[in-house]
């Protein structure tokens, strides 16, 4: 059983939902990323989505774009992200790490080399935003052969026939994008999300995470009532952006505890 699967089945046994915070590796500074990852875990994260900075993050809103830009100032590339995961794994072997990013850094490294290095570093899953299932079958096989999960996005516009195609290739969990737009965009429509998640469940037994519009504890609670996991990205990055070196850790802890409490209250 993969680390991601174990986490979901353990939570299910306890009747709990997963909290998955997203941070961009290297934001605000590469020296702080591993510390931040440990902070996320100690303040309630069940899994971490680690963003690989990219110069052209087409699917991201302004908040995560700025995080990428801050990281890129420090020449934060995929190779260094993998080194961070490796360092994190020295003291944490339990918390799954999902890399989220774009295809080009992986292709620049070469997919075989990436898979080998990611495996060695202790990465559990990979979500490549601009790799729809039709364009990444070979890459998925490489990931699967190395025992890593392929995480896919489903959107409000994804037709059932296409969901069928995606769930065939997806492993670990599915990531439902709760709104039409980029990360951190407008408020999500919880009734619509509920309807769509119920529809997706008819086509798969994989756990379903919901993200792209979780702005506060109240939305986190609403989403937790429907989904198996709540993904918090832009809101987390905003907390990092609004902090200085002195209060970075405490601000992240405060937000995480709010979210954890809200999710556990379901």
């Amino acid at each position: 059983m993969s680390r991601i699967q174990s986490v979901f089945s353990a939570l299910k046994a306890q009747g709990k939902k997963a909290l998955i915070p997203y941070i961009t590796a290297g934001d605000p500074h590469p020296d702080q990323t591993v510390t931040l990852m440990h902070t996320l875990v100690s303040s309630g994260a069940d899994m971490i989505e680690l963003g690989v900075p990219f110069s052209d993050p087409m699917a991201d809103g302004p908040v995560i774009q700025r995080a990428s830009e801050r990281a890129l100032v420090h020449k934060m590339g995929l190779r260094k992200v993998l080194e961070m995961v490796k360092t994190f794994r020295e003291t944490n072997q339990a918390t799954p790490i999902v890399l989220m990013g774009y295809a080009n850094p992986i292709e620049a490294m070469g997919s075989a080399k990436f898979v080998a290095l990611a495996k060695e570093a202790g990465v559990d899953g990979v979500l490549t935003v601009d790799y729809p299932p039709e364009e990444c079958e070979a890459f998925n096989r490489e990931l699967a052969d190395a025992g890593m999960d392929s995480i896919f996005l489903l959107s409000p516009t994804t037709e059932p026939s296409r969901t069928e195609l995606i769930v065939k290739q997806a492993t670990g969990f599915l990531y439902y994008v709760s709104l039409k737009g980029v990360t951190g965009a407008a408020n999500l429509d919880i009734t619509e999300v509920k309807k769509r998640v119920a529809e997706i469940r008819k086509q798969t037994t994989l756990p379903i995470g919901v993200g792209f519009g979780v702005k506060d504890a109240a939305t986190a609670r609403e989403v937790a009532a429907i989904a198996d996991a709540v993904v918090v990205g832009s809101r987390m990055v905003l907390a990092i952006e609004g902090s200085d070196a002195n209060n970075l850790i405490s601000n992240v802890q405060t937000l995480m505890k709010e979210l954890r409490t809200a999710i556990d209250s379901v």
Partner: protein
Amino acid sequence: MKVYDMPDERGHFGPFGGVFVAETLVEALEELRVMYEKYRHDPEFLAEFAYDLKHFVGRPSPIYHAKRLSEKVGGAQIYLKREDLNHTGAHKINNTIGQALLAKRMGKPRVIAETGAGQHGVATATIAARLGLECVVYMGAEDVKRQAPNVFRMKLLGATVVPVESGSKTLKDALNEAMRDWVTNISNTFYIIGTVAGPHPYPMMVRDFQAVIGIEAKEQMQEMIGRQPDAVVACVGGGSNAMGIFYPYIDVEGVRLIGVEAGGHGLHTGQHAAPLTANSPIGVLHGNRTYLMQDEDGNIIETHSISAGLDYPGVGPEHAWLKDIKRAEYVAITDDEAMAAFHNLCRTEGIIPAMETSHALAHAEKMAKTMSPDQVVLVNLSGRGDKDINTVARLANITL
């Protein structure tokens, strides 16, 4: 004879092209693909497109024998396909009309576009005004500064121009931002991409709408000189004017196709926008796989060209394919060489070319010199240079 038939059903030109987008855009592209398949051979749609090209754009654009330039250069005869005489002053309008007519049929009341030099933005704003569509144009903040007259033109035509402050603040960032708008407003918005890049079906669709350039040129050359040219030369940023004139010639033997990229300060300086000539690695950007200027981490690097319209780190996937199968050749021309060719055409022929086009002219001059006077080089004069007079004046330290 082997007939060229590209791309495949999912937009692949060999290893290039494809649909590399987030799931949030997939259905919109699928809708577009289906609608374009429905209309690309529809007689009524094609008749409406042809009518607008004739009566609104002023097509066919003439071919002109640049005799004085040919004599001055010494060598082959240089002919110019005069896309600069189109309404709005460049080839861009051919494509925007095609896509806007499609938007109308799809019932989308709002169109968006990205623009570099502003020519595609102006062409989009123009057809949007004519069809009564709301129009928003994304333009890198740097380009907004460089191309003030075109920004004002778009506003006169009723478009909203949004300066993009992210990344390098140029064309690629404008494209990112337009994609973000599209994914947010999919239900009422049609994204009019200005070049033969982006996810399928854009590279194919833009090529098809621009192919009118090459289709006309073949007929006109036959009429004028009784045969086809020895070489066809066009500038390549994303590559739409080049694809438009190349495409109908791909199956014509004996016609060399030469794409001219922006060499900037010279390939050796790294400050250029010539991924094909510089043998850049293959990568994925803006929805397709192609040759891309990038660093070792796979981040896209900032490009340099004197012409905003060529200042793009990638290139349309079909050009990548034509390079690989050796059907087309790609070369680079520096800023200085392009400027010299710009002045040369102004003084010898009374035509002010766009800075983008001047790259093609510079290479045509180089080639012509090595050829005999009975040979013919056809240059796609893709746009006129009125938009560039401020830049040219600034280079000469003149305040207008």
